[in-house]
């Protein structure tokens, strides 16, 4: 009896199909299909990890299952296949969405403090450490 119910449940699950898709439309051709050329696919994957999903903003398009991320992966793969370079595809998206679409921090007029402040803090810590250790060293010398 239990087996029968389990079987029935399994059939029911098969019948309902995917409900997660927003529109019930099939995904874009290259949303979930890899490129045939492994080298090109590797380039596409590397690029997709550096592009932000616009719908789910804390994921790259490589990680996201949002329909729009799928459509962006399709753009990346089909453009690379058409002979565009990874930089050209990246620039095409940046022209439209600005730095926002980049999931890889780049130094720009607005982001430079992110890179400069840690270096500044590190230099400060180094300076303090040097002074303290230097002092201790001279104390030790004095004691000896």
């Amino acid at each position, binding site marked *: 009896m239990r087996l029968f119910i389990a079987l029935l449940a399994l059939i029911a699950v098969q019948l309902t199909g995917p409900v997660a898709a927003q*529109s019930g439309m099939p995904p874009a051709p290259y949303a979930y299909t890899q490129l045939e050329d492994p080298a090109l696919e590797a380039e596409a994957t590397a690029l997709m990890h550096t592009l932000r999903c*616009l719908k789910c903003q804390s994921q790259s398009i490589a990680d996201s299952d949002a329909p*729009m991320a799928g*459509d962006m992966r399709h753009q990346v793969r089909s453009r690379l296949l058409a002979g565009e370079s990874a930089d050209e595809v990246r620039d095409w*998206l940046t022209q439209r*969405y600005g730095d926002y679409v980049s999931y890889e921090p780049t130094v720009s007029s607005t982001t430079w403090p992110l890179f400069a402040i840690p270096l500044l803090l590190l230099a400060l810590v180094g300076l303090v450490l040097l002074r303290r250790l230097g002092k201790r060293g001279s104390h030790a010398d004095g004691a000896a």
Partner: protein
Amino acid sequence: MRLLYLIPLALFLFFAGVAGYQLTKPKQTAIPSQMVEQALPEFELPPALDGMPGASRADFVGGKPKLLNIWASWCVPCIAEAPHLERLKEEGVEIIGIAVRDRPEAVSGFLSRYGNPYTRIGADDISELMLAVGASGVPETYVIDAEGNIRYQHIGDIRENHVDLLLEKLEEAG
């Protein structure tokens, strides 16, 4: 020298303060398109349903400035903006629709329930045009001038108080 010890505490309080302040603000998720004030990219989309023409860039060139409305039948805020699009149509605005990842039967079902303010509807099955104009969701509405340039972007559903603003922007683009 003693004051130096307070620096970490001051830094911590500064960051805690910034984080606390940000928590009180509503989350800002809209991503403005960088394509505003640029030419509408070349595109040609097939009709989204039987009995209506599809949409292409050429449809925007010439005549008066028009609205490009990116929407979908599965998009809930699109239902809310339907009456306001209807009002814009009554004001004499030509609205060209782009149905994103949509089926013809779903599109015609939506139009018969909530009205049809469009003169044309193109089917954007793979968000091609959406990405080309820098849209990051549905609905979004763009003011396109008679030369085919993008002049203004409205992110999210058009509410009652946006109708006059859009009419103003269309006027400016003319």
